[in-house]
C-alpha cells in the first residue's frame, strides 16, 4: 500500500473540512502548478486559543490527509503551542508518508503558520518574530 491506514482514514473521512466566515486568520499556500493548494481558516479567542479551524485542499491523498490531521492537532491549542507543531509530528500522526509526499506535511505546517500570520497582521502585530518566515517555496516540490 502506498499509504498507511491512518492516512487513508484521514483521506476518506477528513476532519474540519470547510470554511469559517469572517475568520480571525486565513492562510493559503501552494499553487495549482505544483498540484496542491491548501487553505486554512482559524478562529482565535482572547486567550489566543484556536477555538475552531477549517481547511480546504486541492491535492493528492497525502495533501488532504496531512491537512486534516494537522487541523485536529492544533484545534483547542494556544497559538504558541500550535506553532510548535512541526511537519515531523504531522507525519508521525499519520505513522508515515512516502518520501515524495513529505512536502505535503510541510505544506500543512506552512498553511497554519500563514493563517496565524494573518491573525497577527490583522491585529497590527508584526508576525515575523513570532511565526518566522513562511517558507512557501519549501512547501513546493
Amino acid at each position, binding site marked *: 500500500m502506498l499509504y498507511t491506514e491512518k492516512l487513508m482514514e484521514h483521506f476518506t473521512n477528513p476532519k474540519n473540512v470547510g470554511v469559517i466566515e469572517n475568520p480571525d486568520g486565513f492562510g493559503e499556500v501552494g499553487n495549482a502548478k505544483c*498540484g496542491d493548494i491548501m487553505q486554512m481558516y482559524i478562529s482565535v479567542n482572547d486567550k489566543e486559543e484556536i477555538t475552531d479551524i477549517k481547511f480546504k485542499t486541492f491535492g*493528492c491523498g497525502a495533501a488532504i490527509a496531512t491537512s486534516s490531521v494537522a487541523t485536529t492537532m492544533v484545534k483547542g491549542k494556544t497559538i504558541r503551542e500550535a506553532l510548535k507543531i512541526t511537519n515531523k509530528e504531522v507525519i508521525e500522526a499519520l505513522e508515515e508518508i512516502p518520501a515524495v509526499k513529505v512536502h505535503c506535511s510541510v505544506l500543512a505546517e506552512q498553511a497554519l503558520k500563514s493563517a496565524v500570520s494573518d491573525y497577527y497582521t490583522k491585529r497590527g502585530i508584526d508576525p515575523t518574530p513570532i511565526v518566522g518566515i513562511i517558507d512557501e517555496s519549501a512547501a513546493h516540490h
Partner: protein
Amino acid sequence: MEKFVYLDNAATTKISEEVLKEMLPFLQESYGNASTIYSIGRESRSAIEKARKQIATAIGCLPQEVFFTSGGTESDNWAIQGTARRLARKGKNHIITTNIEHHAVLHTCEMLEKQGFEVTYLKVDSEGFVSAKQVEEAIKDTTCLVTVMYANNEIGTIQPIKDIGKICRDKGVWFHTDAVQALSNVNVNVVEQNIDLMSISSHKIHGPKGVGVLYIKRGIVLDNIITGGGQERSKRSGTENVSGIVGFGYAITEAIRDMTEKVKNINILKNHLIESVLKIPFSSINGSLENRLCFNINFSFGSIEGESLLLMLDLKGICASSGSACTSGSLDPSHVLLALGKSHEVAHGSLRISLGKYTTKQEIDYLIEVLPPIVDRLREISPLWKN
C-alpha cells in the same frame, strides 16, 4: 468477492489464457537455450522462429526484419540511439520528434541532446496532432531520424503516419514510429505506412511483460546498443526470452484475429461512458475524439486532483490512471496534457480510462455509478471549487 474493475489497459493488459498456455511448456519442459544444438535447444530455436513469422505476418514485414528486445522501451532506445550513433559518423546529427512522445523516446532524445545531437520537438496542436507538413519543414540536410509515435499513450491520438513516412522516404530520412499503443487497435502495416523502424510491445496486447520487437526495414543498419553473445543475428545480444517471445507471437496473432470484433465492442462501451461522464459539470475530454484509439478516454474534472481521484476509485475496486504529477512522483503533471495547452489544474485533474477486450458493460455502468459522487466529494474539499 470484492469488486475489481480493470480500466487501465493502456498501462498493461491481462495475459490471455491461450497465450499463457502456449508459453508454459517453454518454461517447464522445453527450457533449452536456443543457441544449443540438442533437442530442447532446437525446440526453443524453432519456437522463436515461429513467433518471428507470426509477428512479421501481423505487421506486414519479412521475418528477417523482426528483432526481439526486452520491450517497447528498449526498442525505442535502440531505434533512436542506434540510428544516431550510426549516422553521426556521416555528419547527420539532427533528430525530429514530437513533444508528446513516451518518455522512452523523449528521455532518449534528451540524453542525445546532452551528447551534442540536435533535436527538434514538433509541437502538437490543441487536439494532439502533428502534421506531415511540420515534419517536412523541419527536415534538413543533417537530419538522421524522424521519430513520431503512432498513437499516444495518454490521449490516444493517432498521427498521420503514412504521410509522415512518405515525406521521410522522399527526403531519404529514416522514419521510426513507436506503435506500442496502436498495435491491435488499428491496422498497423509497415509497408503501407512507409515505416522504416517500429517499436511494439507484448504486454499491451495481452501478452507477457518484458518482450518487444524492433522492426528494422531491410537495408537499414543500426549500431548495436546491447553487445554480447551475438543473438538476434549479432544485432541484439542476450539469451532469448523464449517463453516471452512465444507468448508475444501468439498474442499478436490472437489480437489481429480479434481486432475488428474488439474495436466494435469497445466503441459501444466508450460512447456510453463518454455520454454519461460528460454529464458531470465541468468535465471535459482531453485530445481529439476523431483519429483516436478506440480504447482510450482521457477526462478532466475541474477543481480536483488526479491522485486523490484514483485513490477514491481504488477504494471502489476500480483501476485507472491519471496525468497528475502526484501519481508519478515527478514535479510536473503530464507533458502530454500541457502540450495540448491545458492548464496545470486541468492536467493535474485528469483521469485516463482505457478499456480492453475483457471490459464489460456492467463494469462501465459501475464506473458511471461511482464516479459522480467521488467527484462531488473531492470538490467539496477543494478550494478551487466555487459553486
